[in-house]
């Protein structure tokens, strides 16, 4: 397994110029937005309206002070109608602002989740079309993360973007408006806005560095805890509880260390971000008083500038947050892109030819390598298997017998040479039975439809009738992770039924029957012979009972076919085969688990 990571141009690559980085970020955002541009446009409009209304609300407060409060207290009084008009304006703007927030937040979230959904579906679609050879080179967990967690992390920056862009509108509008009221007051804003903004950016960057490290360390800690709990029996067997706790405490302490560093930095910045606006406000009071004295501004105007400034503190902080989120989202996006940008590999099943008359499986000079340029694990194999025969693939661990089985099933394609099969359906059953979390019926059908009779018939051939009949809802019983849990042998029999219901002309068993006891194994093979007629069975065999059931044996060693014939022929002619079988025989049940139920004896005996 190699993780796919072509992510050499990391998002935080320091060598990149600011301009280039900005361009890349912009491209990234455009890429996301163009999935649902209308939804996003509504969100941004809501944010822009909100921004303008925020400026307007401070304007309204200024008017209330100048036209209502001061006349009432310092002069002769104020008309009731003026009071209602001005307060109505405050309430009206407040309500409109709230509406704008609702629109902005709703649509920003809808955009975000819909884009995430689109990305997840696109990635999953890729997983479905890429062949097994592509999957074999990748770790399952990694693929799941790309489709799920990464898609979510990618779009997480999308939600605050409308607000951030609204904030920029707000800053521009506020600066213009303040400059219109009074140039000296406006100049303070011109100086302080960038100051607060850059403090924020520096803050988010320096703190997020520590938090990111803490997050990585937390990951290591979690992995350590998981490992330790998984091996708890070992830990207990050797009385190593204290030692293990101490080791994990060390890992936990690193998380703590990084977090405390972040907290130290953060406590300074948080205080600074509290103090700078307050000091600015105090400065504004002094300058404002001077301007009131010279008659350039009214008390209402002067108050509304301060009021506006108070309203701006929070939005300013959010911009810093958005910027700090960008690298994380970008990294996740790169991981998704790798999957989406990879070319779709051709389906090896399409390259399978038609075998000569009387043959079930035909290999012509077939070679295979897991890596494109790596060493071959199957080397120049020629093989002809009679139609309707049962053939066992036997060989030491790592000899390439499973690879041959997968080549025959058309799951992987040869590097050179050709695989030819008799026409008809193919079924393969693996050593580990895969069950989806659906009903017994879903699992047997797996994407196709069959009648109940056909399903029961297949279950019968797979020796699964009895236990399925005992399930609470029989065919409609939910099995797998969220349902009834089945034993290894039962799962294997369902997987076999899935293979048989398709009436395959070629049945490939990749060490399938090792989870079954030998009795059941023999029973199933007998039924197969009786029913399958012209079907060919190719099975990887790793224990004597399986070999005993085959007509022919193909002995595989080091990626080549060392011998092909009946068991007795091979015993007589091939010394390596003899040694392998003798190793089995010297302890012939080495690989044999006991039958499921002692009291009832082995199934089928």
């Amino acid at each position, binding site marked *: 397994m190699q993780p796919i990571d072509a992510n050499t141009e990391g998002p935080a690559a320091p060598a990149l110029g600011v301009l280039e980085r900005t361009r890349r970020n912009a491209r990234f955002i455009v890429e996301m937005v163009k999935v649902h541009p209308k939804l996003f446009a509504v969100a941004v409009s809501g944010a822009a309206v909100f921004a303008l209304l925020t400026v307007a609300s401070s304007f309204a407060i200024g008017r209330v002070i100048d036209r209502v409060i001061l006349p009432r207290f*310092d002069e002769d009084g104020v008309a009731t109608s003026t009071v209602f008009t001005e307060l109505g304006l405050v309430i009206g703007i407040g309500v409109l*602002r709230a509406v704008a927030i609702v629109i902005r937040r709703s649509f920003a979230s809808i955009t975000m989740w819909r884009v995430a959904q689109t990305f997840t579906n696109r990635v999953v679609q890729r997983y479905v079309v890429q062949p097994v050879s592509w999957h074999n080179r990748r770790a399952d967990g990694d693929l799941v993360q790309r489709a799920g967690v990464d898609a979510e992390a990618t779009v997480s920056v999308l939600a605050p973007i409308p607000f951030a862009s609204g904030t920029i509108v707000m800053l521009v509008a506020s600066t213009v408006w303040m400059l219109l009221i009074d140039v000296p007051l406006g100049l303070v804003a011109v100086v302080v806005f960038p100051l607060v903004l850059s403090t924020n950016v520096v803050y988010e960057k320096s703190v997020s560095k520590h938090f990111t490290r803490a997050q990585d360390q937390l990951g290591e800690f979690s992995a350590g805890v998981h490992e330790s709990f998984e091996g708890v029996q070992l830990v207990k067997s050797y009385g190593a509880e204290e030692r293990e706790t101490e080791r994990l405490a060390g890992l936990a302490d690193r998380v703590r260390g990084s977090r405390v560093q972040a907290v130290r930095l953060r406590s300074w910045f948080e205080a600074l971000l509290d103090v700078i606006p307050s000091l600015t406000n105090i400065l504004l009071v002094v300058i404002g008083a001077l301007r009131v004295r010279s008659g350039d501004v009214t*008390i209402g105007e002067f108050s509304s500038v301060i009021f506006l400034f108070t309203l701006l503190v929070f939005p300013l902080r959010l911009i810093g947050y958005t910027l700090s989120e960008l690298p994380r989202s970008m990294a996740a996006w790169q991981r998704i892109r790798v999957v989406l940008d990879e070319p779709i590999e051709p389906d090896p099943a399409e390259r399978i030819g038609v075998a000569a008359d009387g043959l079930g499986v035909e290999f012509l000079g077939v070679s295979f390598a897991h890596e494109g340029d790596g060493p071959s694990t199957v080397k120049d194999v020629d093989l002809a298997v009679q139609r309707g025969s049962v053939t066992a693939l036997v060989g030491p661990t790592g000899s390439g017998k499973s690879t041959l089985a997968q080549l025959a099933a058309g799951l992987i394609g040869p590097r050179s040479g050709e695989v030819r099969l008799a026409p008809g359906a193919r079924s393969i059953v693996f050593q580990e039975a895969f069950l989806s979390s659906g009903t017994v019926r879903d699992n047997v059908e797996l994407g196709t439809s069959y009648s109940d009779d056909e399903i029961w018939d297949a279950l019968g051939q797979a020796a699964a009738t009895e236990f399925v009949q005992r399930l609470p809802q029989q065919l409609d019983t939910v099995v797998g992770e969220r349902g009834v849990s089945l034993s290894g042998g039962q799962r294997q029999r369902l997987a076999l039924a899935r293979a048989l219901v398709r009436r395959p002309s070629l049945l490939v068993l990749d060490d399938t029957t090792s989870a079954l006891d030998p009795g059941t194994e023999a029973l199933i093979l007998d039924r197969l012979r009786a029913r399958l007629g012209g079907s060919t069975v190719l099975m990887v065999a790793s224990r004597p009972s399986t070999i005993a059931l085959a007509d022919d044996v193909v002995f595989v060693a080091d990626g080549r076919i060392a011998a092909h014939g009946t068991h007795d022929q091979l015993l007589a002619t091939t010394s390596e085969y003899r040694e392998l079988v003798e190793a089995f025989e010297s302890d012939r049940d080495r690989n044999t688990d006991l039958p499921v139920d002692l009291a009832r004896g082995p199934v089928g005996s």
Partner: protein
Amino acid sequence: MSLDPTLAAKVGTLTPPSQDSAVRTIGRGLETAPILRQGLGVTWLFAAAGAAGRVVVPILIQQAIDRGIVDGQGGMEVRMDVIVQMALLGAVAVIVSGWAFRQASLRLGERSERALHDLRVRLIGHIHQLSLADHNDERRGGLVARVTSDIETLARFFQWGGLAWLVDGTLMVIVAGVMLAYDWVLALVAFAVAIPLLFVLRAVQSRLLVAYDRARANNGQSLGAIAELVSGGPTVRAYGAGETMAQQVEESVEITAASQIRAALIGAFLFPSGEVFSAFTVSAVVGVGVWRGPESGLTAGALVGFVFLTYRFLEPIAEFTEVLDTTQMAVAGLRRVLSVLDMPIGPPQPDNPIPLPVGKLQIDIREVTFAYRSRSDGEADAAVLKNIDVTIPPGQQVAMVGATGSGKTTLGRLIARLADPTFGEIDLGGVPLRRVDRSELRTRLIVVSQEPFLFDDTVAANIAFADERADQRDVERVVDDLGVRDWIDTLPHGLATSVGERGDQLSAGERQLVALLRAGLADPDILILDEATSSVDALTEVRIARALERLAASRTTIAIAHRLSTAARADRVLVLDHGRLVQDGHHDDLIAQDGPYRTLYDAWVSATTV
């Protein structure tokens, strides 16, 4: 989105493990992590001083309007000296309070991180000591989550919510105090209009939490569906079921997106409600203030100051509701953490241990019955072992056979005291196991699992796990003693070869070899071997047999046998069936009898002949 509402409610509800109230849970949390309480008063004082900084500006504006800008002859007179003086005073107050705020958040941050670290370590220690009965596969994920994600909910609370609780509450009190001092009538008006906001927010909040829970549950299902599609890759491809599976994933992703959007829409109404209330409260305050006029003693400055103070008063309410979410999750997390600490630890260490006699040890199993406790309510499952009564003399080689679920593995665990019998007693060398010191037991008796666990480390480190005092020489010696030098030499870096996660760089047989070497290093008197079922290539098989033979020599050996050949070689075979000991004797004798062992043997012979 069409979801059965009752089903959705079920998915959305978290069932807390204990019914403790939030207050009691927090109280117990503070007891468990006393460092949090230390100096909390001082931290709070700093937080209060920090919060006080936020009322400086409104007061300054009031003062400026009332005292700095006064009516003079023929117009307005601005007294700059007063204003500058007050501004300086304000600036000092702001800086001091900023510093105090910094102290508060630093103190809280450092202490909480230390407390969480301690809690993690305590939890790990406790979990390691839980009985193996509490460590079944279904529970493992949950136990890991207690130490990681549940503690993280607490960490998030301390990072974002803890300070808010300290500061916001104080801030509201301070602002309310200043308001009351300016004009109590107006203050009451402001409170009367603003307080309903709390209830509105609370109502939205609780719906939001339910929606979040549901979204989280749906998200988990989507991830499960994706994982299924990925892990079933070869099968899905082989049967051309890709489109069907992708369709299922898409449906579940759609449900997830819909529930996430629903939660987001509820959230979209949470924040702006504060906005609406501010507008109404400000208008109400100004309206009433203007109506009462200067006759009531109110000044213009105070009224303008009120406008600012109103916003300052409402801010913390909005922040509170955001924090409540984190707080509720943290309390739920804490509750789960405490519930693990409440679980009784596994076989407890005896108060007055009795030393084991020197020399070989006899094992007496007396009327032992055992039931696992897998339910969270502590109710026992059906018994796995029923009335087992047997004596194993020193030096005997015993094989226990039986089907999966017959109880043979459990009996092995009880002899190793990885769990205590529910009823009955096991004696070792005449000493009840419950009275044997744990560390002494671990040097005299070792369990070797043949599907062993390996740490992601080197081969040498995995062997040396048996004994923390072991050095390279000891490891080399045991490699020679068990005759596996030839295998070690085939490894790319010899003993320094990394085994990978769970040992996946080694074959199943090689992992067994490491486990045997580990046991060899421990050099116990009694060896309990849990045999493997997985297939092993012939050469490794030979090496395992050789190592095993040398390891078992001169020790009492109890093999939990999956292979009848092991039973055939043993001095004595114990046959278990559904938790009962049904046959006991030598392989040859048992075959001569018409019993379960014979049935088993016949089936095996006919099935395994080529």
